[in-house]
């Protein structure tokens, strides 16, 4: 198996190097040539003790449907979006800081026992979005760069991993359009084999003079490209800041969450889960701030006639982030094919809402309905005890939920009654 993985990696090295000829950062250049950087030290995160116990105490108050349980899977600082290795060896977890974590459950008791930083010799910048191809290539979408790590499930055990440019630093978006808040990316590989990346736009509502530039780059949208970075095209526009997407395993369609306009009041505009049925669709921003609520800034402008409205509205300001179609067999039948999604929780609402895991059922005709699945991370004083970010699925059919406030990953499994 090891040989096979290395073989795949070498093959990619040849093809990747062919188009990665421009200067790359020093360490990346070495790693692209399978050289050592001299960095040998990992940062390990303690998985036991008072901190872990505090999180477990919070989990006692989380409510779930009958028969479901939640437990602490791993302590992972700043945990954002997750990518479960296709071989089930390791889960990679992005952050909005400068680290990516690798999370390993070596003894397979469904609790991770090792959390360490991935590729410590590389300097990451908001490496929020890891995603895997089925054949084991790890992609990490950063603020303004995308790298691929072949056979990451094998190489992560060493501080030096194989790494190649997919999108060079400064070429995902024009550097002048970088921001901190709305440049947390997520990525996924579509059924077409292409790499899809969400590109948030860096404002609450952008000014009209930005429109052409953003449409050209797919900022405030979703772009797709071949996995070597070629053939980039704008897949969707009219998106404010999507930080979650997944492909419906039955239809192959892309679904994605979107975060809606702030400052219009506590109860508008609604959050969104969207359904893209083809390339080139417009999802309504900035004419619509969420759902069919018009923004004040564009209230006198005619919206495009073919705007696609959300498949399902969510409560206003709850901040819908990561989402995953459930493909496992562990959960009862009604959850199979449903979407599990994380609400990060509001930051600017009089009474906070969100901080929970939602489940959305998609009917045959494409209509969808949502209900809370796991909640209880807002206490009686309106203080957050946790803020869920993303949902992933383990091979046993249980799901993982990341939380960047607590710095943790939870596992939710079904035991029955």
């Amino acid at each position, binding site marked *: 198996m090891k040989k096979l993985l290395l073989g795949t990696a070498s093959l990619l090295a040849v093809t990747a190097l062919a188009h990665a000829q421009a200067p790359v950062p020093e360490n990346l250049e070495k790693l692209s040539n399978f050289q050592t950087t001299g960095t040998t030290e990992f940062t390990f995160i303690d998985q036991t003790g008072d901190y872990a116990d505090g999180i477990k105490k919070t989990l006692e108050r989380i409510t779930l449907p009958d028969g479901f349980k939640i437990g602490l899977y791993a302590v992972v600082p*700043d945990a954002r979006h997750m990518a479960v290795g296709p071989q089930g060896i390791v889960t990679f977890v992005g*952050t*909005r*800081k*400068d680290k990516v974590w690798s999370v390993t459950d070596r003894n397979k008791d469904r609790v991770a026992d090792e959390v360490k930083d991935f590729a410590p010799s590389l*300097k990451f*910048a*908001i490496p929020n979005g890891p995603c895997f191809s089925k054949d084991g290539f790890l992609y990490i979408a950063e*603020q303004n760069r995308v790298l691929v790590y072949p056979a990451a499930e094998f190489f992560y055990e060493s501080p030096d991993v194989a790494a190649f440019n997919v999108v060079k630093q400064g070429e995902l978006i024009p*550097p*002048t359009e*970088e*921001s*901190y*808040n*709305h440049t947390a990316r997520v990525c996924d590989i579509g059924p077409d084999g292409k790499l899809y990346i969400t590109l948030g736009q*860096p*404002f*609450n509502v952008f000014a009209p003079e930005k429109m052409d530039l953003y449409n050209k780059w797919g900022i405030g949208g979703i772009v797709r490209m071949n996995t070597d970075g070629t053939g980039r095209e704008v897949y969707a526009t009219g998106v404010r800041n999507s930080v979650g997407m997944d492909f419906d395993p039955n239809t192959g369609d892309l679904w994605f969450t979107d975060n809606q306009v*702030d*400052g219009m009041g506590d109860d508008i505009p609604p959050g969104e889960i969207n359904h893209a049925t083809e390339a080139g669709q417009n999802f309504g921003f900035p004419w619509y701030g969420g759902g069919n609520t018009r923004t004040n800034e564009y209230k006198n402008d005619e919206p495009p006639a073919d705007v696609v409205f959300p498949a399902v509205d969510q409560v206003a300001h709850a901040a819908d982030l990561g989402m995953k179609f459930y493909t496992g067999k562990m959960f009862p039948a009604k959850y199979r094919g449903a979407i599990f999604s994380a609400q990060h*929780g*509001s*930051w*600017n609402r009089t009474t*906070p809402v969100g901080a929970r895991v939602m489940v959305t059922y998609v009917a045959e005709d494409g209509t969808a309905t949502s209900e809370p699945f796991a909640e209880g991370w807002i206490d009686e004083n*309106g*203080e*957050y005890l946790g803020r869920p970010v993303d949902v992933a699925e383990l091979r046993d059919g249980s799901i993982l939920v990341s939380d*960047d*406030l607590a710095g943790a990953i939870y596992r939710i499994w079904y035991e029955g009654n």
Partner: protein
Amino acid sequence: MLRGIVLALGGVFLAQGAFAEMPAGDPEAGRKKATMCRTCHGLEGLAKIPIAPHIGGEPEGYIARQLIAFRSGERTHEMMSVVARSLDDQTIADLAAWYALQKVSAALPAGKTDAQAPETCVACHGAEGIATMEDVPNLAGETVMYIDTQLKAFRGGKRTHEIMSGIAADLSDDDIRALAEWYSGINLTIEKAQ
């Protein structure tokens, strides 16, 4: 370096000018109003999310000036521009008074000494990232990406300041990253004000 200090002092006078008409802040009122800040900045100013700076123990004038800049549109941010739009002068003064009241301390990580601190920054931000004068933010323990983003905003003109615009103009991406890593690596403690 001397030039930097002199210019910095100039910045202080200018900042004070902007506050000439500001009401006096009441920290207790500020604590109550800080419920609108705490989800991101924490009630005592130790940030809860990486995109937000730690504002506990920040100089009062700096906090007030930034809120005024967000309100006027001089400084912009996806979230702060929305929040600051609705703040009146008294609220800004109260919030600044509350957060400034928090006691902060900073400690270098093991193996580092003040002498290794970035020379460009220490006159105003201190070797340990605690501001040495008004209208200067603490940098201790801010995330690498927060400092990186702000320096690039100064360099590119999205954020402007009498001193910082000039300093950032000469910095490369690698310089910025190195400065950010120095201050991010410092351990910040905020002691709740009584």
